[in-house]
């Protein structure tokens, strides 16, 4: 047991120092990217030479980055909403109903979590090419539902399993039909799971590269894929700037989600 107050032995100090080093290692690339984004040079230098916000200005006034952000947000929102609806319905069925082959079905729903993303990507590329809808926005949304729905199902099922089903039955005996009982009673009770699932879903969809990169058309490109191709063409501080923006947004998002629902419990 770690007891913070009492007898600081040398071993304990060494242990705490080790933990601090590991935590520093975890945040190191983040720190480096943020530092590099302020450099006044046209090439990447750390520590930054000079101090400027001009890379941020450049990125934020670049129409290609703006349209990539728009595409990413639109895609993540569509995928998250559909995932939440379908995933919640499926979770409800798996927990409350007598589903035949329930174990197999839930494994199939969870499979995209561990299935090689690149394989899903190329399979979808070929499938959508074959039926002639490659590059359509809908194909992206459908694929993102498949890769985000496991997160929704996982969060929703764990919250739902902890709720007393008789509460919904009570609503039914008081005259509420199945849908009303779900809406007025079950839904508010599983709210933390829905929020966590939705947040996860949004992040996973927004961040995805290995599936998305195979399905994009030339006009619509997502932000991570845009940064990915930018890096392949050569690194410069503008990439650090757009990356830093993502770092700030992710950080703010995490703090907000923690305050809202205690996000660490769902990780």
């Amino acid at each position, binding site marked *: 047991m770690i007891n913070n107050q009492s007898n600081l032995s040398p071993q304990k100090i060494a242990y705490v120092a080790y933990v601090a080093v590991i935590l520093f290692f975890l945040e190191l690339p983040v720190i480096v990217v943020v530092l590099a984004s302020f450099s006044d040079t046209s090439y990447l230098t750390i520590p930054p030479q000079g101090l400027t916000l001009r890379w941020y200005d450049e990125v934020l006034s670049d129409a290609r980055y703006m349209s990539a952000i728009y595409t990413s947000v639109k895609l993540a929102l569509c995928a998250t909403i559909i995932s939440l609806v379908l995933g919640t319905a499926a979770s409800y069925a798996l927990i409350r109903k007598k589903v035949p082959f329930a174990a197999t079905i839930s494994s199939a729903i969870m499979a995209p979590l561990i299935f090689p993303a690149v394989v899903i990507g190329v399979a979808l590329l070929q499938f959508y090419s074959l039926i002639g809808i490659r590059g359509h926005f809908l194909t992206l949304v459908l694929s993102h539902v498949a890769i985000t729905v496991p997160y929704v199902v996982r969060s929703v099922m764990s919250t739902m399993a902890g709720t*007393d089903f*008789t*509460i919904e*039955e*009570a*609503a*039914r*005996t*008081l*005259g*509420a*039909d*199945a849908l*009303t*009982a779900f809406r*007025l*009673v079950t839904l*508010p*009770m599983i709210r933390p799971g829905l929020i966590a699932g939705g947040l996860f879903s949004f992040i996973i969809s927004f961040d995805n590269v290995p599936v998305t990169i195979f399905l994009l058309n030339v006009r619509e490109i997502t932000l991570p894929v845009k940064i990915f191709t930018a890096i392949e063409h050569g690194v410069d501080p503008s990439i650090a700037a757009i990356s830093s923006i993502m770092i700030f947004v992710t950080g703010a998002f995490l703090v907000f989600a923690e305050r809202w629902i205690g996000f660490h419990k769902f990780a």
Partner: protein
Amino acid sequence: MPALSIKQLRKTYGATTAVDSFDLDVAEGEFVSLLGPSGCGKTTILRMVAGLITPDSGQIVIAGKDVTHVPVHKRNVGLVFQSYALFPHMTVFDNVAFGLRRNNLAEDKVKERVITVLSKVRLEGLEDRFPKQLSGGQQQRVALARAIAPEPTILLLDEPLSNLDKQLRMNMQIELKRLQRDVGVTTIFVTHDQSEAMAMSDRICVLESGKTQQIGVPEDLYHRPENKFIATFLGRSNSFTASIGKSVSGKLVQLDLDEGIQILATASDKVASSGKVHVTIRHETVKISKNPPDKSKALNRFKGKVIYRAFSGSIIDYVVTLDDGPEFLLEATNVDGERHALPGAEVWISFEAGAVLVNELGDQ
């Protein structure tokens, strides 16, 4: 027309039969308990009446209307769950108003009704609390208020008192019974606690393995059990197997217990035939005394030795081993507060012929 009429109800889960050929008629305003050990099917019956479970076969008629295939939300039954199942995200007011709002009652009428019902369960002033902020007894009363607010045709209670501590349970028994009489709602009460069932019910239906064992007023069940299960299930008793001996008079018959003593019992059609029977003698019908009791007062009297004595306030429990005979458990009333008949003491025990309950031996 009965308020509730159940005919030939049956429900199976795979190979196990939860409820089998169950019949019950409940009169308007009556309080009927379904009593039995856990797994006897009592909750399944209650849930079928509520509409939460669909029966395999049979019929449920509420106020003359066949509701067997009517969905739960259209049955107008009130159900109080063992866990109370209060809506955790709603205030007491919104909990109680839930059923009223489903009936599209105007909001001022809802308010009026909620206030009335809350005062009936003595929870005035707690409208804005959330369930988590209430004690167990208060939560239980909210559950009750929520169930009776929409004026259900039938009130169903699923072990509503089992989560309360003993003292509170006694108070709630009285309060619940009063409320039920006051509102006049037909009530089905599911419990495994026999004293609770006997204290509150107009009639009790005892269930075992999905089948009715006996239905009747509590006194009938207790004093005139129809079978061995009822005789041993209700109250605390001594059980024996015996052979029917000679008839002593028109009114009395001699029974030879397997343990080697003879006792006298009141003759009835159950003991008319010869053969093996089951004998039940309740603890409180056995008297204990230092001197041999007058034969005119107790036909059955035996000498024995106290081997165990437990004082628990108003009553004292004894275990007495008869000379050349079985052990008897008995319960005496504490009358004088003295330490009588300590272990090792030589005593007499006695009981009336009418206290001997005789039933068919059954399968084993």
